[in-house]
C-alpha cells in the first residue's frame, strides 16, 4: 500500500524538494539521536517523576515486586529499564529519519509514533517543571518534527498542511522561548547563566539581552505568518535556533573536563536540531517558491524548477 499524493509524485524528482526533505530528515535525526543519548547514556530530566508511588502501583498490577522496581544495585530497576527502552526507541526513530520512504507505511507509522514519544517526553518535562506552560509549548518543534517528516514524505513538502505544520512548530518553539525570555514566566536560570558565560556580560545586561531576544521571538511568531516578513523571520529563527542550541556546549564544555564535557552537552544541542532545521526548511521553501495571497484564498505559483536543458 502506498500513501502518496499526485503532488508528491510530481515533486519526487525535484532537487529542491530533496533539499527540503533532507532538512526535515536531518533535524529529526539529530533530535532523536540527542534524546537517545540522553536516555541511554544519561538519565533524562523527567525521570524523577517516574519514581513515584503511583508508578509503583501501576507496575504492581503487572506483577512486579518492590525489589524488581527499585533494583538491587547490581541490576537496573524497572524504571531504569523502561528509560533504556525509550532510548532505543529514540535510536530507531533516528535511523528511520533517513531510511523512511514515502512508500513504506510501516516506517511512516513508526515515525509518527515518534511524535507521540516526543509528546510524552514533553509532558514529563512539563510536569517536572512544575506545570510551567512554556515548557510544554517550546517542545513543539521537537514534538512535530517526526510528523512533519511524515507529512513531507506522504503528502509532499510543498503541501499547505506540511508548511502550516512547520509554521506551527516554529511558533510553538519560539513562543515558548519568548514567554520565558521576556519573563512572563520565570526566566530559567540557565538562560541567564549561559548568556553570562558565553558573552561575559553581567546579570543586568544579560537579562536585558534576553528580554530583547524574547521580544524578537514573539516577532518571529507573527512574522512567519506575514508574507513579506516570513523569509526574514525564518532566517532569523534559524540563526537564533543555532545560537541557542550551540550555547549549551559553548557555555559548558572545557578542555579540562573528561571528553571536554562533550558527553554532557552536545546531545542538548542535538535534540534542539528542529529548532533550526524547521526554520531552515521554511526559509528554503519560501525562497524557492513565490507566494501570492489573494483575498480569501491562497494561490501557489511555483518558479520554473526544471533543470536547464543540456541538449545541444
Amino acid at each position, binding site marked *: 500500500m502506498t500513501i502518496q499524493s499526485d503532488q508528491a509524485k510530481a515533486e519526487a524528482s525535484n532537487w529542491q524538494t530533496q533539499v527540503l526533505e533532507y532538512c526535515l530528515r536531518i533535524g529529526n535525526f539529530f533530535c532523536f539521536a540527542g534524546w537517545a543519548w540522553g536516555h541511554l547514556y544519561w538519565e533524562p*530530566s523527567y525521570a524523577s*517523576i517516574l519514581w513515584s508511588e503511583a*508508578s509503583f502501583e501501576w507496575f504492581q498490577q503487572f506483577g512486579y515486586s*518492590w525489589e524488581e*522496581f527499585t533494583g538491587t544495585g547490581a541490576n537496573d530497576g524497572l524504571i531504569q529499564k523502561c528509560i533504556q527502552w525509550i532510548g532505543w526507541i529514540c535510536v530507531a526513530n533516528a535511523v528511520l529519519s533517513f531510511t523512511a520512504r514515502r512508500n513504506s507505511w510501516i516506517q511512516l507509522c513508526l515515525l509518527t509514533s515518534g511524535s507521540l514519544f516526543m509528546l510524552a517526553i514533553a509532558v514529563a518535562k512539563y510536569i517536572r517543571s512544575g506545570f510551567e506552560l512554556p515548557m510544554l509549548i517550546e517542545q513543539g518543534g521537537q514534538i512535530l518534527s517526526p510528523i512533519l517528516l511524515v507529512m513531507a514524505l506522504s503528502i509532499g513538502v510543498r503541501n499547505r498542511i506540511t508548511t502550516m505544520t512547520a509554521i506551527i512548530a516554529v511558533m510553538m518553539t519560539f513562543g515558548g522561548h519568548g514567554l520565558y525570555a521576556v519573563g512572563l514566566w520565570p526566566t530559567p*536560570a540557565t538562560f541567564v547563566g549561559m548568556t553570562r558565560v558565553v558573552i561575559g556580560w553581567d546579570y543586568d545586561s544579560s537579562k536585558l539581552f534576553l528580554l530583547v531576544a524574547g521580544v524578537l521571538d514573539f516577532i518571529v511568531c507573527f512574522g512567519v505568518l506575514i508574507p513579506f516578513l516570513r523569509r526574514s523571520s525564518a532566517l532569523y529563527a534559524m540563526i537564533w535556533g543555532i545560537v541557542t542550541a550551540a550555547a549549551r556546549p559553548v557555555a559548558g564544555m572545557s578542555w579540562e573536563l573528561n571528553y571536554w564535557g562533550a558527553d*554532557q552537552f552536545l546531545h542538548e544541542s542535538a535534540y534542539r536540531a528542529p529548532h533550526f532545521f524547521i526554520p531552515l526548511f521554511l526559509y528554503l521553501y519560501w525562497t524557492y517558491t513565490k507566494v501570492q495571497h489573494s483575498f480569501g484564498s491562497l494561490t501557489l505559483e511555483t518558479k520554473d524548477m526544471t533543470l536547464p536543458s543540456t541538449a545541444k
Partner: protein
Amino acid sequence: MRNRIFASLIILLIANTVVGQNRRRVDLSIPEVDRKDVICFALYTVHDQTLKLTAQLYPLKNDEARLARLEIKKEGNWVEVAQTEVIEQGWTAPFRVAKWDDANTWQYRVRHGEQAVYEGTIRRNPTDKDEIVVAGFTGNSIMPAHGGDISRQDILDNIQRINADILFFAGDQVYDHKRHYAAWLKFGRDFGDIIKDRPTICLPDDHDVGQPNLWGESGKISTLRGAADGGYAQPGLYVQEVERAQTSHLPDPADPHKIGQDISVYFTNLNWGNIDFAILEDRKFKTGPAGRVPKQGPRPDHIRNPEYDPVSVDVEGAILLGKRQLAFLKSWTQDWQNAKMKVALSQTIFCGGAHIHGSASGRLHADMDSNGWPQSGRNRAIDALRKGFAFHLAGDQHLATIFHHGVNEHRDAIWSFCVPSIANLYLRWWAPLEAGANREDNMPEYTGDHLDGFGNKVTNYAAANPEKKPAGNILNTRSAGFGIVRLNTKTREITMECWPRNVDITSDDAQQYPGWPRTISQLDNYHPRSWGKMKEFQFDYAHPVVQLVDNETDEVLYTIRAHNSFFTPHAPLNREFTIKVGKDSPDRVITTSAKAKK
C-alpha cells in the same frame, strides 16, 4: 507485557497532567499586611559580646522610609541601640551591636515607621547551664503533591516545652527555586514564634539557592541541568539575597573575602553556653563532579554500579570544604576560649548516608551530593574536626542517621547526627546489602561497621528508615521529624534524640525513632581503638586546655579543654608527643616526651 507497560507509562504521564493529583503550584503569594505588621520576623545570634539581628520585612511602599530601628528594654524603658538601612533586595534590615551585655536577658523590639513593631527576647548567654539544648531541623517542604502546607504547630509547641537554647536549621528552609523571598516570609510566619526568642542558626542549602543540588565551586556559574558541573544555577544576585536573609545575623565571617559572582561567605563560629559551634558551608567550595569523575551511572553525580572502583572518583584536585574553611577549622579546634565542647554545624554529613532514594526509587550505590565525596576532602574535613573532638550536626539527607566516622580505621573520628526532615519530600533509606560488622547486641543488620558507597569507613548506629510504602502520602508522616541534641558541659556527654512529628515529646508515652536516644562522650569523637593511653596529668586549676603535638611531624594531634583538673591523654602507640597546657590556650609545655601505652 512490555507493550502494555509502555502504553501504561505514556498514559500515566499524560494522566498526571490532565487529572493531576491536586498538583497546584504552592501558594506563595505575599500577603498585603497592615503597616504595623510589616516586620515579618527576626533572627539573631550573640557571639563574643556582639549582637547580630536581622529583621525580615514585607515589601515597603515607595513612600515609606528605608530605616529600621532596634530597641531594648532597659529599666522599664525602651532604648534605641541601633538603626539600619533596609536593603530593598530581599527587604532585610541587618543590625549589629558591639559590646553587647550577654550576661542579661533583654526584651527587644524592631521598629519601622510609626506603627510597625516586632518584639522578642535576646537571651543571656547560658554559661551557667550544665545542659545546652539544640533543636535541629532540615527539609522544610510545603509541596502540594505531598500534602502541602501542613501546620508546624507541633514543632513549635515541642520547642517551647523543652525550652531549646538554640535552633539550627541545617538547610532547605525553602524549596521554591524561584521565589525565595516569598517562601522565606512563609518560613518566618511558620517559625517566627520560636525564632524570635532564641539564637537561630540557618544554613542555606541547595534548594534555598534555587537548585536541586549544589556544588558551589567558589561561585562559578552552572549551566548544566542539575548543576553537577559545579556552581550556582541562579544568578549571583539571587544567591546574595538568599544568604543575606538567612545568614546575615550570624557572627561575623571568619574569612570574609567574597567568591565568584560577588557571593559572600559566612562560615564562622558561635560560642554560646560554653559550646563552640563551627558554622560551616560544606557546599560553597565543593567541586562539581560532572566531567571530573568517570561516569558511573545515569547522572554525573550518581553511582549505580556497586562494582566500581571508589578510588577512581576520588580525583585529584576535587575540593570539599576548601582551604579557607580547613584553615578556619585548624585554628578553631585549637581555640578553647570560653569553650568546653565543640560542635560542627553544616548542611550535610560526611558520608554517603543512604542507599535507596526517591519516592519509590532505585538503589543508588553512591551520591556525590553527599559529603562522602570527594573522599580525600571528606577525610581532611573529618581529620580537622576530630582534632577538636567536634560532634557534627547536619541535615539534608531526608533520613535521620547516627554515624561514627572513620578515616584510617573504623570509629577513629567524629560522630554525626543527621536530623530528619521537617517534611519529607524525597525519601531515602539506609539499607546496605550486607550486614554491618561489629554490631551492638540486638541491633539491626544495617547498623555496624560498613563502607559507604565511596569506600569511606562508617559505623551506623541508627537510621530512621521510612516504610517502603509509607503510611499516608503526606509530608509529616514519611519519617519526618526533628532532632534534639543535649550537650552537657558538666559530664561532657552528648545525647541525641530523634522525634517524629505530631507527638508531645515531653509525654511519657512519646516514642522516638528506633535507635534513639543515644548518648556519647565528647571524647568519643576522637578515640581510635588502636590508641593507647598515657599517664594521668594533674593540674593546678580546673579544666585546663590540653594539647598534644606530634614530635615527628610537629602536627597538633588534638586540643581539648579537660573535664577536670586532671586529664589522661590517649594517643597513637609508638609515637612521641609534646604536651602543652594552659588556662585558656595551650601555651605551656609540660612534657616533650609523652608516649602512650596499651
